[in-house]
Structure formats: C-alpha cells, structure tokens
C-alpha cells in the first residue's frame, strides 16, 4: 500500500523526479520524497489522523495546509511542528501529537543579536496575482520595492490552478493556465533589479511605530519600515458550523488544491463538496483530474454562484449538483466516513424527509472567501501610507486581482512621484468588467443547419471571458472588445469553419464543440474537449455522451483522441453521434453513476456538538447560550469560552460566531467586535531574540 495515495499521472501537471527517502511514523518506516512536507508524506501513505486535541482527545488532521492553524501538529524528532510547513528529512521520526507538546530542557543561553531594521520606499506583502502585478508596474518605473511572500515560490494561489483562466486575452492572459500565469509574472518581475523578493517570508504584524515585523526566510526576524505599504494578502476561506466539521477529512478548497496540485498527493478517494461558487466547482474539476471521485456537490442557493460553464463541466462529467441543499453533518469516528445533506426551504431550514447520506472520505468546504485585510486595517489605523489590492480589497477572480494590482502599482508610483503618468482610464473599466459577477443566462441555441461544420457554443451566460474570439483561425467567433461579458457569437456559415479545433481545445470553460456533417450527415462527427490523462481513454472505447445539463444522450465509440498544435495539454475527443443528438453533445461522462449513489439509509445528525472554534474546541451551543443570556461583546464571549484565542488567531471562528448572532436575530450593530492583535501566525520566541537558527533543527517556513 506504500504511496498508493500519490498522484503519478496528471493531465496538466508534470510529475517531477524526486529523491525517495525513508521516514518513520510511530516507529514504522514510510517512504517519502525529499523536499516534501510531512503532511504530504503522511497523506501519501494514507495517514490522516495526525494527533489528538489536548482538550477532548478529538482526532486532528490537515485543515488549512497553509501554516495558519495548528491542527496538523506532529512531533518530528521530538519537536512539535506544523506538518504542513515542515519538510521531511531522511530517517525523521514522526509521531502523533497527543495532548500538549513538551519542551526539552536546554540551559545554555543562545547567542542573541539585534534585530535588523530596514527602510524601504515600497513594501508589498503578498506575491500573488495582485502583488506581483503591482511589483511589475513599480519595477518598470524604477521604484525600489520589497516584495515578500510566505510561500517557497511566487504566484500565490495561481500556482494551484491547473485550469485555463477566464478574462480578457489582451489584458490578463486569459486562456492561460493559472500555474503558467504565475511563471510568466514571476519571469517578468525578475528582470527588474529594483524589486527585491523575499520568499518564505511571513509578515507577522504592522506596528503602531509603522514598522512591519517580518519572519524572513524562516530563519530571522526583520523590521521593515516602508514609506508606502501595499497589502496584497489575498483571501481566506469561510468555514461552516455543522456536526463533525472538525473530523480529519473536512477541509477547505485551498487546502485541497495545495495537497493535490502542489504536493501531488490524493487526500481523498471519494470527495463531497459543499458550495457551488467558482472555488468549489473548480476544486471538483481538479479532483476529477487527479483521479478522485466527486460524489456530489451541495449548494444552498437555488442556483450555483459560480460560472455556469464551470458547473456544466462537472455535471456533464457525471457529478450531481444538489442545489437548495445544505450539509447536515460529516459522520465518522476517527475521520470522515460519510456526509449527510438535506434539501432546505426558502428560509434555509432543512426539510425533514429529504436527508441523504453519501459514503465519502472527505468533505470540501467552499462557501466563500473573506479578504485578509488586517494588515491594511492596522496600517491605516497607524497613519501609514497604505494601499490594498486583489482579494484583500475585494473578492473576485485572479484576472481582476491582476488589474487591481496594476492599478495599485501606478497609484503608489503617483504617490511617490506625483508627476508620473496617470493611470489609464481603460484599466479601471477593465478592472470593473473582470470583477463582475456572472450575468444573465440565455437558453442554449442549436443552429438549424445540419451540413458542413458547425461550432456549438455551449457558453450561454454573461461572464468576462474572450479567448475563443481570438482563437478562431478565421476570426469567426465574435465578442465585442469593449465588453467581453457578451456571449460569443459564431459569425460564419456551415462552410466557413476549417475544423481546426482551436476553439474546442482553447475555451477555458470547455464549452465549445464542433459538429462535422461532411462525411456522414446522419452520423456527424463531434469534437469534444478533454482534459484528462491521455491513458484514461482510448480509440474504440465506448463513452456516454452528455448534454450541457448533464443528461445522458446516448453512447458512442471514440474515433480518435487528438492534441492540437500550439495548444497546451487539452485534448480533443472525436466521436460519432446520430444527427438528432449531435448538436446537444457537450461532453462525455467521466464518472459512473454508481459513484454518486446515496446510501439506502441516511445517517442521522447527532446532537448540537457543532464546533465553531476548532482550536479551542468551543461549540456553537456554548456561544448560543451566552448570546441568549444577553452577551453582546465578542471580547467577553472570547474571555469566557476561549473561542478565538487559539492557534489560528480567530481566523476561522470569527465569521461563524457572527453567523450565530444573525441566526439568533441580533443586529450586528449591537455586537462589539473582538480586538485584533498581533501575531499573524505563531512564531518561535527565539526568532524575536535574534537567535541564529540552525536550519537542521528549525521548522522550515515555506
């Protein structure tokens, strides 16, 4: 069973050669790869319970996969470390953390040094799409800039995105995969010598004396005093309160994508997704690409909130989407074994009798994002010249973050040098368009022609996206430049399409097929985009043809699977279909129907033991009782229950607690918010003492 949970083939990601090493888990040898995190190595070996909570012995596992919480703590060579941030070492002895860790006695005082202080014209916190784009603008104009990022490479969440991006080809690399956009931006930035980049460097606090405390490269503490600060720290995921929500196997989409697309491990065999925004929909697609079954997706609203093309992709691959449904519980003893969902009424209350339980080993929570804006708020409070860009300012797509970053870059330039060029008005317009939510949906129209070659555009919702219009070798697909939210229109006739397949392979939504009537008008050939590993489908295989809405239209045999020159990793599958259904074919089923079958009996939800503060194990019931007693000051609720005082610094529970206030009908203006205090992440005391870190001993902060 060794390493059976590794991703060894992936349609988009290349699997690097890595050096195998041996580590030990509870004394038993496991194989791992040099350079991977402890959490990746454990999950690759099918280990999901990393320890037990000191308060109630509840099993703990990976949750944020981002160094923000402490759920994944293990003992590595007797030291307590975060498994998601610490790299494996040959023969490392790893054991579960059961209860509180202990510190070994060390009586020789270490050598300390003064903390370096640095003055910079511009400091950018966060090297994702917004921070990178701002840094590039400042780079172009020769402004001395320091860009810091807590990860081991630039790109932020772009590096986890294997799908092609939406947006405008002219403006923001639409049609390019997120991972490749990250590399391009990183490369562009590297040419500017006036921009310094510190990777693996975490901002810990913005202080009232206008210094920013930075844990640099995991090894030292530095105080940086910027003339101008740009906060481009992205977003954090919202979480949900439901029974079983802290079982190992329940985590957010960010954690999931990190494990799958960065660490190349399969944390799940059967995944259930809660939340139908773009994040949840895309995570479902990434799961399928990684060979993980997606049992279903539940969305509380009557329609999913994400782009329709993302939704359509999932349903036609065979993933059922349950709209107007909510999760009642994750069930299991040591880890997730099943999920129970139910339909909800217009007041979002579960309707008795509609409960369904699905067997699954992971529940992915993707119910929205909140800006990570605390540094910005503090900086403004302290009177600093501070700006904010990307998701930290407003949650939107990465393409919008790129524009937001560009605008922030030039805004800062103007701040420093008022005579510099003004920001082009068109940028603001572009930023607005890229930020727009999905608009009107039109019925899918099937052209009334059954001869020649006809492209069928299964993209019927107004979204900011235009790569198809630039891909057609004959320029036959039209989207007006001035507002790329318009639905693409095929401008040709039955003889104008050259069947070059570039639109099929290049549409980020995989929403264009071609129907070719030329050889056999009764059984035309249909070209379908396919983004799975080539070895998963062969010529001669029988496939189930699916409509846009996920209905089975019939079966067919694969004629051929082709790659397109100049196209990057999307394949095109050619099948034949009867002319009655050919224009409706939007895809092929990837996942058999039995994967999504509900259990014959549902697992009832246990009493209200829902945890809201997972660090301190505080239940929704405890909070609710205080609210009903009349408590309105979050600081007081925190003091009584400890909710929000744990390792993650209330990053997860604060929105959940406000939600309970809303459920209880308390207007939020009656609620005193809790004070926000440094540090952003827990940091070893020795770092502040200026102790030179022995790299072999310390946890690697990446």
């Amino acid at each position, binding site marked *: 069973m060794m390493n059976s949970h590794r991703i060894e083939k992936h349609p988009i990601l290349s699997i690097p050669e890595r050096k195998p090493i041996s580590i030990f888990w509870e004394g038993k040898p496991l194989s791992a790869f040099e350079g991977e995190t402890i959490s990746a190595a454990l999950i690759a070996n099918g280990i999901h319970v990393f320890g037990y909570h*000191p308060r109630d012995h509840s099993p703990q596992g990976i949750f944020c996969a981002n160094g923000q919480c*402490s759920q994944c703590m293990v003992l590595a060579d007797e*030291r*307590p470390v975060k498994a998601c941030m610490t790299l494996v070492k040959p023969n490392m002895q790893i054991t579960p953390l059961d*209860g*509180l*860790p*202990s*510190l*070994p*006695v*060390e*009586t*020789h*005082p*270490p050598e*300390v040094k*003064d*903390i370096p202080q640095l003055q910079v014209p511009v400091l950018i916190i966060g090297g994702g799409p917004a921070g990178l784009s701002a840094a590039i603008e400042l780079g172009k104009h020769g402004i001395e800039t320091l860009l810091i990022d807590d990860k081991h490479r630039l790109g932020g969440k772009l590096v986890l995105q294997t799908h092609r991006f939406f947006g405008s080809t002219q403006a923001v690399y639409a049609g390019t995969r997120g991972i490749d956009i990250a590399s391009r931006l990183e490369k562009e930035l590297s040419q500017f010598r006036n921009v310094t980049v510190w990777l693996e460097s975490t901002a810990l*606090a913005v*202080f*009232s*004396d206008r*210094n920013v*405390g930075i844990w640099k490269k995991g090894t030292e*503490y530095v*105080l940086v005093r910027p003339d101008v600060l740009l906060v481009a720290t992205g977003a954090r995921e919202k979480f949900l309160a439901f029974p079983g929500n802290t079982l190992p196997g329940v985590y957010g989409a960010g954690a999931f994508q990190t494990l799958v697309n960065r660490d190349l491990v399969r944390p799940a065999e059967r995944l259930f997704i809660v939340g139908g925004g773009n994040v949840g929909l895309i995570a479902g697609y990434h799961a399928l690409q990684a060979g993980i079954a997606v049992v279903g997706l539940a969305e509380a609203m009557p329609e999913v909130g994400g782009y329709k093309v993302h939704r359509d992709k999932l349903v036609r691959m065979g993933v059922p989407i349950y709209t107007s449904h909510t999760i009642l519980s994750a069930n299991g003893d040591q880890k997730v074994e099943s999920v129970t969902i139910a339909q909800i009424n217009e007041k979002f209350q579960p309707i008795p009798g509609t409960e369904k339980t699905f067997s699954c080993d992971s529940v992915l929570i993707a119910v929205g994002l909140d800006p990570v804006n605390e540094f910005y708020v503090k900086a403004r*409070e*302290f009177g600093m010249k501070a700006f904010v860009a990307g998701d930290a300012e407003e949650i939107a797509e990465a393409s919008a973050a790129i524009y937001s970053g560009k605008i922030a870059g030039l805004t800062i330039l103007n701040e420093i040098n008022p005579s510099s060029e003004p920001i082009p008005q068109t940028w603001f317009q572009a930023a607005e368009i890229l930020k727009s939510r999905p608009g009107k949906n039109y019925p899918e129209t099937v052209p009334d022609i059954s001869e020649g070659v006809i492209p069928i555009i299964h993209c019927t919702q107004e979204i900011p996206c235009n790569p198809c219009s630039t891909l057609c070798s004959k320029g036959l697909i039209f989207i007006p430049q001035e507002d790329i939210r318009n639905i693409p229109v095929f401008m040709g006739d039955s003889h104008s399409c050259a069947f070059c397949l570039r639109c099929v392979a290049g549409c980020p939504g995989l929403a264009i097929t071609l129907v070719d009537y030329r050889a056999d008008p009764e059984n035309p050939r249909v070209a379908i985009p396919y983004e799975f590993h080539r070895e998963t489908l062969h010529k001669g295989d029988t496939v189930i043809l699916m409509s846009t809405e996920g209905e089975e239209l019939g079966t067919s045999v694969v004629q051929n699977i082709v790659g397109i020159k100049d196209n990057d990793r999307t394949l095109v599958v050619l099948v034949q279909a009867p002319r009655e259904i050919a224009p409706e074919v939007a895809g092929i089923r990837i996942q058999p129907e039995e994967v999504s079958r509900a259990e014959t009996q549902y697992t009832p939800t246990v009493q209200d033991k829902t945890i809201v503060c997972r660090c301190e194990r505080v239940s929704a019931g405890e909070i609710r009782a205080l609210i009903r007693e009349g*408590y*309105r*000051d979050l*600081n*007081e609720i925190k*003091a*009584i229950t400890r909710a929000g*005082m744990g*390792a993650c*610094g209330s990053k997860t529970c604060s929105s959940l607690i406000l939600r309970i206030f809303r459920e209880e009908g308390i207007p939020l203006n009656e609620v*005193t918010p809790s*004070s926000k*205090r*440094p*540090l952003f992440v*827990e*940091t*070893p*005391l*020795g*770092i*502040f*003492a*200026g*102790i030179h870190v022995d790299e072999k001993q310390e946890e690697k902060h990446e």
Partner: protein
Amino acid sequence: MSDYPQSYDVIVIGAGSVGTPAALSLAQAGLKVLVLDAMPSAGQGSNKHAIGGIRATHSDPAKIRLCLRSIEIFSTWKEVYGDDIEWYKGGYVFVAYREQEEQTLKTLLQKQQAYGLNISWLDSGDLRKLIPHLNPEGLIGGTYSPNDGSASPLLSIHAFYKQARNYGAEFHFNEPVTEIIVRSGKIQGVKTSKGMYSTPVVIHASGAWAKSLMNPIGIEIPVQPDSHEAAITEPVQRMFDPMIVDIRPAQGSANFYFYQHKTGQILFCITPSPNIWGFDIRETSAFLPMVSKRMVEVMPSLRHIRIRRTWRGLYPMTPDGFPIVGWSREAEGLLLAVGMCGQGYMLGPGLGELLTRMVTNTLSPGDEEILSILSPYREFVGQEKLK
C-alpha cells in the same frame, strides 16, 4: 414613571479589577449597588491586559495583607462558587544573577518574613531543582514564595461579575459617568450619558482613567498611566511552576517576568525604562525583541516556544508606586480606590472587601494600618521596590 433618579446605597465607577470584586462584596453585605462602566462589558479596560500573576510577596504590610486575602479568595473560588478561574499555586521566584539584586531581595526578605509571609531564600542549586529550565550561569539564588500563584483575569472577572449580579448588584455598560454630583461637600449622585442616579457613596475605581472625573470637582489625584506590553505563547506541558521575576535593569527595560499558566501557555511582560506615559495601547515593534532576548537568557529552552499573541495595557501609576485608597476629604461619601500601579488584579478581591468594611463602618485595627499606608493624603515620597 417617576422623575426622581434611581437611588443606590453605593455606586461603583468602573467594572474592572477593583470595581467588580468590590461590587460582589458590597452586594454580599446587603447593599444596593450599581456599577457603571463606559465599556461594553466587565474588565475591558486594563483587567483583560493583566497576565494573571497573584502574589502577596510585596514589601509593605498594606499590599501584603490585601493580597493574602485575595489569594484566599482566588484559591478557594472554585470550591465556594463552582467556576474554574484557573487558579494555580505555582509560587513566585525573584531571581538574583548579580550581587545588587541579591542584596535588594535579601533585605526585603527579612521584612517580608516579619510580616508573616511564607517566603525563603533558595540558593542556586535549590532554585535549579525547583526550575530545571533556568540558566545556571551566574545564578546566585532567589526568593521563593510557594503560596503565591496565578489565575485567569478573564475568567476571574467574569466569575466576580456573575456572582455580583447573583447577589443583586446592577451593572450598566456602555454608560460613561459624565459628572459626580457634589452638593455642600457631600456626594449626591452621578450623572451619566444616559441619566442620573442618586447615592450617598461613590467608589471611584476607574483605574487609568481616574483623573478626569476628579478634576471638575476640584480633586487632584496623582495617577497617570504608563503602558506595558505582554504576550502569550502556545500551550506546552508543564515546564515550571513559579512566576519568575528578574528585577535586573537592562537597555530599555527595568524588570520582566513570566510564568506558565495552569493551561500550559507562557505569559510574559516587561517594564519599559524609561516609562512610556500616556494612554496609547497600540502594539509596538520594540517589545518582542526586547523581552525575548531577556527571556532566552534566563530560560534558554523558551527559544522554541511559539508566541501566539501580544497586547499592551495600562498601569495606573502613583508617584510612589503604592495604590491610593481612602475617603476623600473634599467630598464626603467619595471613596477613592485608584492607582493600583498594575496590581489591580491581585489586589482587587481583598481590596473589595476592605472597601465594603469602609462603607459599612466595620474596620478592623489591621485595616486602619493598611489605610494609613495607602492614604490619598500621604506624602508620596517613598518608592516601591517590587513594582
């Protein structure tokens, strides 16, 4: 509805470290009590910034007696009232790494023992047995007072608040007092942002904010706040029991101290030198490097513990470092309980009972001695050694 203001036996200004336990004690004595606070809930001023140390190890009989009583209240709270306030009897150790501190501490020790404190001198070896994590290099010894301890200020104030209400005390939050009404030299009542209340007795327990309400009625009290920063770490298994206090001065700081809470976290705090006066409680970048350097010198193992959160709070200081407790001579019925100099949390429960005895006229001879030391009308010439 009557136009007459509501009337109380006692109005306490400030639901903090002093006012809240005082309200409990007053209500237990059968008095009708109203507590007024400008903030949204109990302890939101300076109480929640206290790190939780509770000691009777002081240098004068007033604070020693008050804190001995406080320790009794804290340590028996769970038995008596049921709530866990995380009391931990870990003791206090004042370490000496230099002869100066050895001298200071040993001189005080004689006094402290004379006042009946359970405190003794441990030499380097015994101290290391007690605290194996201590840096032995240069360690001369230190005082050890095993009956001192710590508890959670957050849980304690909530427990006092809850019990005070059980006994009938009323609390009004988000209601700042705007005026203390004095007629013919006598307290008549108070005016707040929301109304007027009449009372013959006002206990002034508004800590760092004490001065502003007194000026309009012509009373000058020498209290001004300075600020200290503190922090808490992740919880770890028990490393050591006592609060460790190092009174050596260093660049930028006077003493510093740290302890391990009942639930495993290390809490620590440092005294800036020179003092940072004023009401600013926004976090500074100077604190963590300054304190961490000193901590790893005294306890090297702590370099590995993760710091979780930092904050800054106010010490309502008096010129000599001793609290101000006593009846005002300028306004009859005005009882001052201010200027706790950062020790309001440990003084509060004992002081609350003393305030009740003052109001109910049941003072003991011992109380008289305490009140003479803490009198608002003393000379303020001495200097507290163990601030």
